[in-house]
């Protein structure tokens, strides 16, 4: 069983952490994963940096720019991940825009994912129809899950379609904002969460975008099986370096230390 599915089956209150590969320094990838492992996060999303990350807020954009300046690229990422499964068992998802993957070759890319022990992909700009038509088979062959996003604007019909073709979790975008921070969830968002929960989907839901502290983490896990934190984590390592990651995770979890 794919590690992602295992976690989804076994755990509640899942915490998934996103970081950009090659940031702050090019060779930080493995160390960050190690730290996340020690901090007992439940899933890891590694961002493959892209020059034009148009679905990301400023924090992730900047980390991508730095990572690219540091020399990060797809080839290098797979090198860094070569022995990752000796270090951690946590599910690893690569999140990347489609163009770099296309240039690497989707086949090659999926194969290298499998080889290194990557469990799934989030490709925000790979449309469902193109995925189904051209790439689903390749993904499946390499036992890679593909995670889709839904937003407050996604219709129930479309959510049901996404649920049907999903084999991992559904990434529930918390709001229509990609600016990176949300103080607390408002009425609209709560209604949206309720609407989705009422659909009784087969897939697990993780909430992402704008989660930055214990409070909204708690709110998120009230409405879903877990949450994804990206910008807040990157801000943290920008300010505190990569060796105090457990502090951040503990704070999010609300563990008093």
């Amino acid at each position, binding site marked *: 069983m794919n590690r992602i599915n295992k976690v989804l089956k076994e755990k509640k209150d899942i915490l998934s952490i996103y970081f950009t590969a090659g940031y702050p320094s090019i060779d930080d990838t493995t160390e960050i994963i190690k730290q996340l492992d020690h901090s007992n996060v439940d899933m890891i999303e590694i961002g493959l940096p892209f020059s*034009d990350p148009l*679905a990301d807020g400023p924090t992730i954009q900047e980390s991508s720019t730095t990572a690219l300046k540091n020399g990060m690229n*797809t080839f290098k990422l797979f090198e860094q991940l070569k022995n990752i499964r000796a270090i951690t068992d946590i599910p690893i998802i690569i999140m990347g825009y*489609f163009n*770099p993957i*296309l240039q*690497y070759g989707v086949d090659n890319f999926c194969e290298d994912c499998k080889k290194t022990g990557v469990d799934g992909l989030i490709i925000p700009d790979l449309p469902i129809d193109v995925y189904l038509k051209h790439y689903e088979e390749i993904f499946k062959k390499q036992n890679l899950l593909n995670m889709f996003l839904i937003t407050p604007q996604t219709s129930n019909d479309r959510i049901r379609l996404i649920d049907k073709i999903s084999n991992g979790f559904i990434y529930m975008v918390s709001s*229509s904002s990609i600016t990176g921070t949300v103080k607390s969830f408002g009425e609209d968002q709560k209604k949206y969460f309720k609407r989705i929960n009422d659909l009784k989907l087969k897939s697990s839901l993780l909430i992402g975008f704008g989660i930055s502290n214990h409070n909204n983490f708690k709110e998120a896990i009230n409405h879903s099986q877990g949450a994804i934190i990206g910008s807040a984590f990157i801000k943290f390592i920008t300010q505190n370096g990569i060796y105090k990651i457990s502090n951040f995770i503990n704070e999010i979890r609300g563990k008093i230390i």
Partner: protein
Amino acid sequence: MHKSYNVDSEGYYGDFGGAYIPEMMYSNINELKSKYLEISSQADFVKEFDDLLKKYVGRPTPLYFAKRLSQEYNSKIYLKREDLCHTGAHKINNTIGQILLAQRLGKTRIIAETGAGQHGVATATVCALMGIKCIIYMGEVDIKRQAPNVARMKMLGAKVKPAYSGSKTLKDATNEAIRDWINNPVDTHYIIGSVVGPHPYPDMVARFQSVIGLEVKTQLLEAEGKENPDYVVACVGGGSNAAGLFYPYLDDLKVNIICVEAAGMGVKTGKSAATSILGKEGIIHGSKTLLMQSQDGQITEPYSISAGLDYPGVGPMHANLFRSKRAEFISITDKKAMDWGLKLSRMEGIIPAIETSHAFGVLDKKKFMKKDILVFNCSGRGDKDLDTYIDYFKL
């Protein structure tokens, strides 16, 4: 019958096109896709569109026979005078169409990206006309080199937001506009300024711009007794002025199509925007097309002296015209383009936009016959570029 060079029912031109968009844009793009053809063919839309093009934009724009140029180059050279459109470029044909669409979709807020500022001005203009809020994204570099257009947008009441990322030019402004749309998915319509972006934008923009080519047909019939020239020539940034001119000729193989790209300092200098030569198939701004990119798939920062051609991709229609060899692609350096700006000013009394100037470079690169009829798209006027021209030529 050969395959059409126009868009297919799936939103593709051959291998190119489609809608490679994040889910956050899905509802908007899907709404557009499912409604743009229906709305834009409704009688009241057609009437209002035609009426505004005629009475507000000043269409039809003339097809002007350039006598002195024709003499010097010994063939029949016509200029389609989009520079005479209200706001000074072809861009407004599209913004008129899109604002009418946006109104019918109930949108109350408009965003747009701009490079040369012409699209920004054209968007700000239609927003003022309709009393709708308007935000324009523009690269920091372009804000500097196209200052008059920034001033115009402000006069028109638009908010101009600088894009500081990447090369700080058109590509980056487009990223910012997309992000804005993602953040404002309900009340906002995004008026893309060229035949780029996810389907249905390339087709929608091409249709709104097709008035250019359709007018040429009628006008050429009057001037020369036939609808079809031997050549149609246009500069290509994203490709909208070109698409507008080529539209009715796409599948008429007797009409030769020439696309002119910006070579910048030279195609091999690393300072260029000649996508057809330097680009490879990939995804940019939601569309599969040709784009300049690293081996890794990182989008390359392009360069051209002209802000409107300083874009690392081309629209999917043009990618297909290139791959299928339906069109000939020629690239023209900054220097050649600037020289043509001055030459057209001095020979015909028309100061072209630097974008437009590139198109005329074809006359030095290709030999034409005396009987050949060439139609150049004079896509815009050079008022926005005066500082650049004056500095360059030390006038």
